[in-house]
Each structure stands twice: as structure tokens, then as C-alpha cells.
């Protein structure tokens, strides 16, 4: 077994010993979507407008939190230091995390999308597999950013505080609350460089139309590029020698 799959299996085994976390990761997005559907009972078109983007935002937030705490734990318990003295490449370690949490993200996306489209009546014009793809990419984006910021946190308190610091601004500016083309130019410019904006744009395009246009492909490519860039930066924060 290679180091990548061994690491992914190890992360999944850790999760298996923690059924409450699995339940929270998988069920909370579903419950929130159901709550939202109930909230907008009188205007199904509002649910259609924000339900799609939220299918991408929930996995993003959940994976950000889970990864930043999990990586911080590796650092604080000394297991990261042990791993870095062993014959494992940093790419295999990070890839193992991405693989394991990516699988969880697939299950989460299947459940949330299935519930929204099947039971809650969310109108999705585009292909369901594309919705799943974007949701999983969003989860990986959260994972990659979580991994990156955990290097700047010394305690779990600090790690959790990065959620409002890194995730909330992206949420406010992603176009869900105010459409991005109606924003003040400065805010629009900021929103243009935040990866979540492209994730939400992709979801909006997918739920609104069944054609796969070049803009959709571009949005997906930007999100995927950001995932790779953040994972690469995250790898740089794993130092074999520490002071």
C-alpha cells in the first residue's frame, strides 16, 4: 500500500471512530437546506435562487473547519513531526487528507443534492453530476484553505476563529446576498479575487441553465486552480525542520 492510500485510510479510520462527527458533517447541511425550504415556503423561486449556491457553500464551510482542526491536531500531538521523519512525501500526506475528506464530501454532496432536488423541489436545470462535481470541488477548496490557515493557528481556539475571518468575507461577497454585478466597484473587485465567488457563480449557472457554456467551464477551472494553489501553499507550511 502506498503512502497516499495509507494516509487516506488512516484519516477515514479516525473518522469511523467518531460517528458523531460523521453525522454532523453529513446531516447538518441537509437539515439546514430543509430549514431554508421551510423558511421560503411562500416563495419557491427564492429557494431556487439560493438553494443551488448553498449546496456548494455548506461543504466548503464544513471541510474548512474539519481540516483546520484535524491538521492542527496533527501538529500539536507531535504526529506531524513523526510523519515528517518517516519516508512520506508531503504531497502524499496532503493528498491522503484530500482523498479521505473528498470521499466524505462526495457522500455529503450526494445526500444534500438528492434531498434538495428529490424532496425539497429545488429546480436544477443543469446536469446533476455537474452539481455534484462543483460541490466536491467546493469541499476541496474548504479543505485546502483549512489546511493552509491551520499553519497560522497555535490553538484550536485560534483555528476556529479563522472560520469567520476567512470564510465569512467570502460568503458576504460571493454574490448570494447582493448580485456581484450590483456591488460597489471596490467590493466587486475584491469579490473577483475570492475563490468562493467562482464556486457560487458556477452553481448559479448550473441551476439556471442546462447548457455547459465556456463561462461555467472557466468558473470550474478557477475553483480547481485555487484548490491546487492552496494545497501547494499548504505543503510549504509543513516544515521538516522546526525551531
Amino acid at each position: 500500500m502506498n503512502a497516499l492510500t495509507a494516509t487516506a485510510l488512516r484519516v477515514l479510520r479516525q473518522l469511523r471512530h467518531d460517528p458523531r462527527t460523521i453525522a454532523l458533517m453529513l446531516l447538518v447541511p441537509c437539515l439546514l437546506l430543509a430549514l431554508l425550504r421551510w423558511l421560503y415556503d411562500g416563495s419557491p423561486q427564492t429557494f431556487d435562487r439560493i438553494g443551488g449556491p448553498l449546496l456548494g457553500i455548506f461543504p466548503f464551510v464544513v471541510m474548512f473547519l474539519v481540516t483546520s482542526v484535524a491538521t492542527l491536531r496533527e501538529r500539536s500531538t507531535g504526529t506531524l513531526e513523526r510523519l515528517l521523519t518517516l519516508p512520506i512525501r508531503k504531497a502524499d500526506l496532503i493528498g491522503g487528507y484530500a482523498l479521505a475528506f473528498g470521499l466524505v464530501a462526495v457522500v455529503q454532496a450526494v445526500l444534500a443534492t438528492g434531498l434538495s432536488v428529490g424532496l425539497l423541489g429545488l429546480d436544477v436545470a443543469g446536469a446533476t453530476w455537474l452539481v455534484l462535481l462543483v460541490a466536491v470541488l467546493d469541499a476541496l477548496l474548504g479543505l485546502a484553505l483549512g489546511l493552509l490557515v491551520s499553519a497560522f493557528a497555535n490553538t484550536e481556539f485560534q483555528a476556529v476563529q479563522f472560520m469567520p475571518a476567512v470564510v465569512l468575507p467570502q460568503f458576504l461577497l460571493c454574490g448570494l446576498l447582493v448580485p456581484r454585478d450590483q456591488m460597489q466597484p471596490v467590493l466587486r473587485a475584491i469579490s473577483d479575487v475570492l475563490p468562493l465567488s467562482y464556486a457560487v457563480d458556477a452553481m448559479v449557472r448550473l441551476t439556471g441553465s442546462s447548457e455547459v457554456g465556456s463561462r461555467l467551464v472557466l468558473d470550474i477551472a478557477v475553483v480547481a486552480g485555487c484548490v491546487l494553489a492552496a494545497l501547494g501553499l499548504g505543503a510549504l507550511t509543513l516544515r521538516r525542520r522546526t525551531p
Partner: protein
Amino acid sequence: MPNRWFILTGERGRFDIRRMLNSAPGAAIDADGLRVVRGGRTVLRDVAFSVPRGSVTGLLGPSGCGKSTLMRAVTGVQDNVSGRLDVLGLPAGDRRLRDRVGYVTQAPSVYADLTVRENLHYFAALLRAPARDVDRVVEQVDLGDHQHARVERLSGGQRARVSLAAALLGTPELLVLDEPTVGLDPVLRRDLWALFHRLAADGATLLVSSHVMDEAERCKELLLMRDGELLAQDTLPELLARTGTDSAESAFLALIESRGDADPEEARR
């Protein structure tokens, strides 16, 4: 003479003759002029020693004297190391050493939310060690009854043994063990020292730290440290003869007094 070699070969040359002349042949660890700076403070000052292959060498000294830093330097996880430090004939921290050196930190570094076997299977996979290695190390640290228990349910001593077991996987040539017997029951402590000597008899080299001077009696070679400096490298009988004392503890005191810096505060100034 040494200066001429220096000019001829350069300080860090690949075929440094001076380096070959000074190195003890076949030493597992060989250090000269070793210096470590942490947060602006020099925590290891001009340390030189060599650890013979196949020996159990004790690294003894009070807590805070730099034992852990020295071990971190040997395993290649310590930053800001200067001087010469060769491990199994390679510079410390070389990637080729990653499956040849086993390192056990003072705090057990295993996954608390996994079982003993799950931990060991993971580390064995990374080391490409054979699957039966897991059974061997479980038996070596006497954790057979707890191998299916999650590490978080184990006592502190048992956790320390899981961490040790992980380092034994793949049969490393050098084992660096930071205070492996702290807080263990005397019977277990005796058993672990017996294990260390069996491993050395099979050809492994062990560097074991302790702040308990009594443990000196269990080591073939001793490195005595204090306040970032190496006071002595000797065997226990030689050390006792040289200082005219009858225990490691009093030999340690005699060494400090002979240096004339008995007061640690004074020494630092």
C-alpha cells in the same frame, strides 16, 4: 596541520579529509562543534561526541539541559543547527535516513483516536515494513492485551509504549529515544531496558535520554549534559574511577564542581 587540511578541502567538502580523519570509524552518530540556537538563545554549545554502533548510550542530564534538542538535531527535525553532525555516515536529516532512524519523542506521538494496531499498521505502511512487523513490535513492548484498544483509553505508560513500538517498525539501525522510561512501573522499566540491550545485541544502536541518573547503570556509554554543554563522554566504570565517586549522581556533581561553576545562575552569566 589541521589548518592545512582545512585549506585543502574546505569545511563542508564532499571528500573532506579532515572530516574523515576526525570521524570515529563506524560511529553511528558523530558530532563536532555542534551548536543549536533556539529563539535567539544558544541551547547547545560546541558539543562533540560519538556514539559507537551496536551500543546503548545514555544521554543524561537535568531537564532543560538540551537533551531533547540534541536528539531533535540527530533526527533532523531541529532547525538552526550548525557544526558537523553525521548519522550513520550521512548528514543528520538526510532523506536516506528516514527509514533507518527511529525516533520516539518525550510526549507519545501516536493517534489517540485510533487503536494500537491501526496506528502501527499506518506507520508500517509508510515504512514499507512487512505486515508481521506489527505483531513483533506489539510483543516487544508487551501490549498484546491492549492491541485492539484505542490509544486514548490507555494509561500514560501504555501510550509511551505504543509510541516506542511505532519506532521499532522496520527494524531501524539507530533508535533515538527521548525519556522512554519516565513514569513507568519498575518491572516495566527493567523489561524495557532488557529490550534495549537485546536490540543492541542484534546490531541496533540506541541513544536513550533520561533525567534520572540511576539509569546510567543500564547504559554502556554515557553522555553527561548540563546547561547546553557536554560534561563528559565515558563508560560508567571509567567515569567513577576518574571522579573517585561511587554513583553516577555524585560523579555528575564532581564534574560540575571541578569546572568551578556549581551555581547554574552563575554559569549562565
